[in-house]
């Protein structure tokens, strides 16, 4: 049996998510001496971009930030910890491997990041097919890819980053299929002189296997992946490979913000120039406010951390830097907007919901997410619709409903902590 603490925890500032934004927020706020809790569902801070593991080489900047976090005795790091439910005003139910408990706070900064958008296509559920960021995470976590042939497909700079990681670990990247057109990618690259470090990254990541106006059609294989059929311009090519990694850009994680009552527009948390949401004492920073890369996340996190502890003037000094990285993010999002053809990849029998084995054809006749869910069980499995709900939003334009507790699967004994006796 797991143990549930009956005593609750209180902090002045709670930060959810220990990626670049959350770490920066904690470091900016900490010198004022307030009690800070920084929580993240991964085993170590760093988020997706600075994910650690046996095969990971965490950048120096991330290592420095991690070291500085440890130097502050007023920052308590809760790793491997997830938010399960709201437990009243400024109270959240949390769970880690050992226990479930309620944490209350005065101020909150949401740095919940983003996740990969996975779109269904024939064969996408075969073993060997992963997300593009997913492949990176697996390699950092210890997956051996030496001498494997890998195809990477989807959109955005993440494809090149994933390709670079795979190559560094001995894989042969036989194709990087970017769905955006050459003119869009070239236009984006040409604008990079304004962000010199990004231009250097782009050059070092460039690959001879890179093709634009290219997207995956079918993953081939019976028991596991054996090859990929790809549309490249107006030609179709077939490549033999052991792995296929697909990422169709990132989707901000806005579920907790939405449950709290923050405004969400265009799938991102709405914040003002102080990184403040519409709720008093509730801030948001980083990818959950819109996809923009780690540099933007860092500066947003610093601003949020400063504002949360009342240092508005210092925060104002960072506005110019934020503006600069926002410009980069805007270019990125325009250049790599999704080609509508990607919505038509699924065949009638292609699974859209992997948890509950729901096919595209089972969903296509329905008018709404709720109607489809009730009829087909789509989204009722362990991922709680995070993957298929996002896919259905892209494919059918269905608005996913508000997240209800538990926000992610949680032990019943944790959920029972919501019981407040007879004071209902």
């Amino acid at each position, binding site marked *: *049996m*797991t143990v549930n603490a009956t005593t609750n925890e209180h902090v002045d500032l709670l930060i959810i998510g220990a990626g670049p934004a959350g770490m920066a927020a904690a470091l900016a706020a900490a010198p004022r001496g307030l009690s800070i809790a920084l929580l993240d569902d991964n085993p170590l801070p760093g988020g997706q971009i600075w994910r650690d593991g046996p095969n990971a080489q965490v950048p120096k900047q991330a290592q420095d930030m991690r070291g500085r976090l440890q130097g502050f005795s007023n920052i308590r790091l809760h790793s491997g910890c997830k938010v399960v*439910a*709201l*437990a*009243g005003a400024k109270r959240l*139910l949390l769970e880690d491997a050992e226990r479930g408990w309620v944490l209350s706070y005065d101020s909150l900064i949401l740095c919940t990041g983003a996740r990969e958008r996975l779109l269904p296509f024939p064969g996408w559920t075969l073993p060997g097919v992963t997300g593009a960021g997913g492949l990176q995470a697996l390699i950092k976590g210890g997956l051996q890819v030496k001498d494997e042939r890998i195809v990477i497909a989807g959109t955005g700079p993440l494809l090149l980053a994933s390709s670079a990681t795979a190559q560094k670990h001995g894989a042969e990247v036989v194709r990087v299929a970017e769905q955006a057109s050459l003119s869009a990618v070239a236009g984006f690259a040409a604008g990079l002189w304004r962000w010199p470090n990004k231009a250097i990254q782009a050059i070092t990541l460039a690959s001879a296997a890179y093709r634009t106006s290219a997207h995956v059609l079918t993953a081939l294989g019976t028991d596991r992946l054996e090859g990929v059929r790809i549309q490249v311009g107006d030609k179709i090519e077939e490549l033999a490979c052991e792995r296929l990694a697909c990422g169709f850009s990132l989707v901000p994680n806005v579920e907790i913000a939405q449950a709290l009552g923050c405004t969400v527009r265009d799938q991102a948390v709405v914040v003002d120039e102080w990184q403040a949401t519409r709720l008093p004492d509730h801030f948001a920073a980083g990818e959950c406010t819109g996809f923009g890369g780690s540099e933007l996340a860092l500066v947003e996190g610093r601003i949020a951390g400063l504002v949360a502890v009342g240092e508005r003037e210092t925060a104002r000094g960072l506005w110019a830097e934020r503006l600069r990285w926002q410009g980069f993010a805007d270019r990125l999002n325009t250049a790599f907007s999704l080609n509508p053809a990607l919505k038509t990849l699924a065949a009638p029998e292609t699974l859209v919901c992997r948890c509950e084995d729901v096919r595209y054809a089972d969903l296509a006749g329905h*008018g*709404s997410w*709720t*109607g489809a869910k*009730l*009829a087909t069980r789509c989204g*009722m*499995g*362990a991922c*709680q619709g995070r993957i298929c709900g996002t896919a259905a939003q892209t494919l059918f334009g269905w608005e996913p409903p508000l997240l*209800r*507790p*538990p926000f992610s*699967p*949680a*032990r*019943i*004994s944790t*959920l*029972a*902590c*919501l*019981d*407040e*006796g007879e*004071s*209902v």
Partner: protein
Amino acid sequence: MSEAPTLQGHAADVIVIGGGIVGAACADELASQGLHVLVLDSQRPAATAAGMGHLVVLDHSAAELALGEYSVRAWCELAPQMPDDCAMRTNGTLWLACNEEEMAEAERKHAALREYGLACELLSGAELARAEPSLRSGLLGALKVSGDGILYAPNAARWLLQRQSSRVVQRQAEVVEVQGNRVRLASGEWLQAPAAVLASGIYARELCPDLPLQAKKGHLLITDRYPVQITHTLVELGYVTSAHKGNGPSVAFNVQQRPTGQLFIGSSRQFDNHDPEVDAAMLGRMLRRAMDFLPGLGDMTGLRSWTGFRSASPDGQPLIGEHPHQPGLWLAVGHEGLGVTTATGTARLLAAQLLRTPPPLDLEPYLPQRFIGARAHA
């Protein structure tokens, strides 16, 4: 959905408002009798999608027992034709007794159901432990009602609405006004038929404010999939003797394992609460109660929780029959937590009245007249 233009004067033989389990059963029954039925549904969240799909015979009154027993029998007759996705099972209910008072209630219930001809038996504490080893030790015993079952109501409703498609036409539309056998849609369009049936559950009062219906909010939670560990639907007898007595918020242990392997956990009851959001404290209390009965539950993973509203009449029995003040408007509302169980019986009682055929049960206890006075003659 029909593409043919509908005549305003005669949209169908009967218009059914509400395509939940009760409306679907009514439409299906009327179609079986040869009538053409138009079902209007607004696709709003409602009890059919929210509930546990527990087919259970209750006996708070003779009327409840009669309608429940007849209805579950009707479901069992339908079962062989139902598609797999309706997940119909006759798994039986175990009413659990924690103390002497509840064991006495089990014995009383046993005698009452036996007298009515239902298959049921009393289990000792040891027999109960053998039947359901996941339950905590020390329970006094249980009453097993063998004919009770479970089904997945959204798919059962859809099947009932689709299986006679030549006579049942569905249309997604919100009805905003009812005048006897005439209904006005949100679009402004008026539709008319010789009869209209109001089966919109919790929404019925929006169209008919004189209905004596009260919303009772409930919470549910479903777990991840697990190997079979519970075979019956488990309900505490406190459900009737203490937990849900009175008007305060209450919880009672009610668990079934779905054919998917997921544990489906209830129940809670709150009055005068119309907020569809999950009430965290209520959910916690309900789960705490469930853990009291199933000690292993604490380490299992909960996936989703949600709420629903039961539409309850003052005496707990549905209103089935013509509205006393509105000729042409027929009511099939007020089923509280038993809409799925009694949908089949409700449909047959309603059809018998509409078509003036002999009813299978005494109609009296379900007539709307018991709450809505007879029309004063001018």
